[in-house]
């Protein structure tokens, strides 16, 4: 039982925290959101310079071989700054699919660019007209055509999908779900980007008989569900950590506001009703922090423990994020409703995190079906 960081982990955490504190104030976020691609290339380059884009990749592939704890530290720090750059979407999600399933040749062709911030990938998996949280109940189809494949279907919520160099598309094929590397400029693809309510850029992607050669298959025909299952566990753990970072900052900002905002001639933080609400927020943040640690460490556990502990973490974070987000807005009063102020942005990103990769209800169902949680320790 050890909750201490190694010296390297502490250094990583400090480095990212300092980067966020020095380079990413709320104004930076607004500026990044206003750029054409919905985030800042300059910030992305700085993240590459810090080595963050290579963090999860193996040292042999030019990365740093970071695991769950390292990713947790980075995501929590990015969450504190409400960083809008698509670290989770491009590096952890799409990059993760490549890392988990890619052949040596596929990795060799892309990882250097990803780690340097020069090559962007996006996972096109969620569908607008199918089940919400699934790795295999898809409507997008891949059919064999000559020595390749034809892909047809619709995808949504593709993170940074309109500025990506390459898509990874999931589709049902003979033998199961298969992942395909797809050029977003290919014939038959329509990509429509927009800003999500959380400030992050997302895209809808339509595929109409898009050609994919045989060597575009990522990880073997029919292996997609297994890859996505593992991948979503990793990214869920990362999102949980991001939520903890956002909640931490929202709590601190709210407590500061309670100490400075004066009404009835006193700081409103002197009112017990508001003090207790702030305490309720704080307790949820600490419980959520515990679950982020659990999720990160669960990634090394056997399959059943891993799956259920991560489900528990996401369920808890979904509930905590809703409560903390709502109360941060409430305790700020009307200023919490404005786009000029960061609390509203924190609230919206927390709301999105609950919706992504299974909301609290979905994960509670997973645990209920399993008959509870396995013991830890």
């Amino acid at each position, binding site marked *: *039982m*050890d*909750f201490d960081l190694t010296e390297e982990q502490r250094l990583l955490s400090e480095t990212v925290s300092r980067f966020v504190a020095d380079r990413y104030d709320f104004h930076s976020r607004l500026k990044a959101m206003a750029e054409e691609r919905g985030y800042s290339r300059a910030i992305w380059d700085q993240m590459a310079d810090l080595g963050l884009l290579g963090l999860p990749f193996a040292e042999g592939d030019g990365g740093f071989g970071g695991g769950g704890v390292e990713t947790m530290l980075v995501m929590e720090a990015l969450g504190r700054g409400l960083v809008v750059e698509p670290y989770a979407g491009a590096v952890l999600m799409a990059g993760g699919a490549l890392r988990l399933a890619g052949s040596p040749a596929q990795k060799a062709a892309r990882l250097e660019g990803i780690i340097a911030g020069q090559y962007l990938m996006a996972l096109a998996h969620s569908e607008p007209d199918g089940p919400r949280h699934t790795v295999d109940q898809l409507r997008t189809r891949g059919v064999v055509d000559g020595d390749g494949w034809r892909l047809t279907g619709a995808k949504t919520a593709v993170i940074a999908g309109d500025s990506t160099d390459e898509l990874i598309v999931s589709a049902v094929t003979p033998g199961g779900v298969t992942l395909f590397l797809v050029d977003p400029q290919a014939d038959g693809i329509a990509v429509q980007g927009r800003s999500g309510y959380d400030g992050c850029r997302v895209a809808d992607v339509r595929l109409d008989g898009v050609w994919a050669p045989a060597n575009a298959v990522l990880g073997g025909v029919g292996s997609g569900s297994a890859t996505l299952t593992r991948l979503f566990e990793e990214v869920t753990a990362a999102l949980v950590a991001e939520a903890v970072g956002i909640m931490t900052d929202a709590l601190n900002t709210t*407590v500061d506001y309670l100490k400075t905002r004066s009404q009835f001639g006193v700081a409103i933080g002197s009112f017990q009703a508001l*003090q207790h609400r702030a305490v309720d927020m704080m307790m949820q943040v600490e419980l959520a922090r*515990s679950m982020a640690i659990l999720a990160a460490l669960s990634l090394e556990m056997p399959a059943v423990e891993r799956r259920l502990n991560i489900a528990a973490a996401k369920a*808890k974070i979904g509930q905590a994020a809703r409560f903390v987000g709502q109360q941060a807005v409430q305790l700020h009063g009307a200023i919490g409703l404005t786009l000029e102020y960061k609390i509203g942005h924190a609230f919206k990103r927390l709301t999105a995190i609950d919706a992504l990769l299974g909301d609290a209800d979905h994960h509670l169902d997973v*645990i209920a079906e399993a008959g*509870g949680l396995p013991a830890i320790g």
Partner: protein
Amino acid sequence: MNLDFTDEDRAFRADVRTFLAEALPDDLRRKMVERRHLAKEDIVRWQRILNARGWAVPAWPVEWGGQPWTPTQRYIFQEEMALAHAPEGSPFNVNMIGPVIARFGTEEQKRRFLPRIANIDDWWCQGFSEPGAGSDLAALKTSAVRDGDDYVLNGQKIWTTQAQYADWMFALVRTDNTGKKQQGITFLLLEMKSPGITVRPIPSIDGISDLNEVFFDNVRVPVANRIGEEGRGWDYAKHLLGHERSGIARIGLSKERLAQLRQLRADLAARGMLTAAEQARLDRKLAEVAVELRALELTQLRVVAADAAGGGAAGAASILKIKGTELQQRMTELTLELAGPAGLGVPDHHGEGDGTDGWRAAAPLFYFTMRKVSIFGGSNEIQKNIIAKTMLGL
């Protein structure tokens, strides 16, 4: 970071488990499983078994019967006790007055009281609350006036748990009215059979008469039974309330109760007593409890680890107390829901012989009795005041 217990801790857990499996009397275990009220003799009997093993008061100083355990080992011990359905012993003896005497008592007081406290040769009760001093404990008025080698007490305590069993009371009394109300409070030890003490039971919603009023009419207490200095009782009381937090969230207890809830749900379903919709609803509620419990377990372990490293946050005990009690109460609600109307005809009986399963008869009383946990030991609202002040700076 890792969640693994060390080999040493695992071996320790195995030792504790083996001992408990052998040493816990079966009738006690059954009473605990069925949530029946324990008699004084039950608690004393178990405490003496533990004491014979040297484990009755592990958190005390070693010279007075404590164990040189780490916070992690104390956590494991408490968890194993709960999982084995072992009674908890008297908190007034083990967690409250013992540590105070060990820390602030004279050598004479230690020699006289501590061995008897550990073995429950004396049963202790806590004389803190008064009719006008609950959450605002420092407003207490029971007066102690010096008269030669004695104090003379007049006044009243209330909500005194198990005063009907008690041989001794540790009490906060007022010896000075002139300064701040926290000053002028003195910590005294008094014998319950002293002339002038009257104990009156207060029937409570759980059908148990464990709460009492205690009246003092010119009760003489030797000055030798004062803890520390006159007027510093408030400091000693604060030490008592913050003494031991490796078990404060009562994770083991909640784990055991959740496991039992699952068992009860399975039994009722097997007997065709739950509709499919009811089963799904219960499973969902049990999943929510499991998630809350896991989050609390990790939080408790973080606090244990921080304490082991000597750097735990001051308000953390309050978080654990609030969330731990909320979870315990939530589980009593689920037990009540599972029992259905079967416990309705049982106003004050504790689960014995009503032609229905013992636990179903006990469920409502269990629910009612557990309302106390968010009130005693500093209500959850007072805990929030503490967190707001110490951790948020509000």
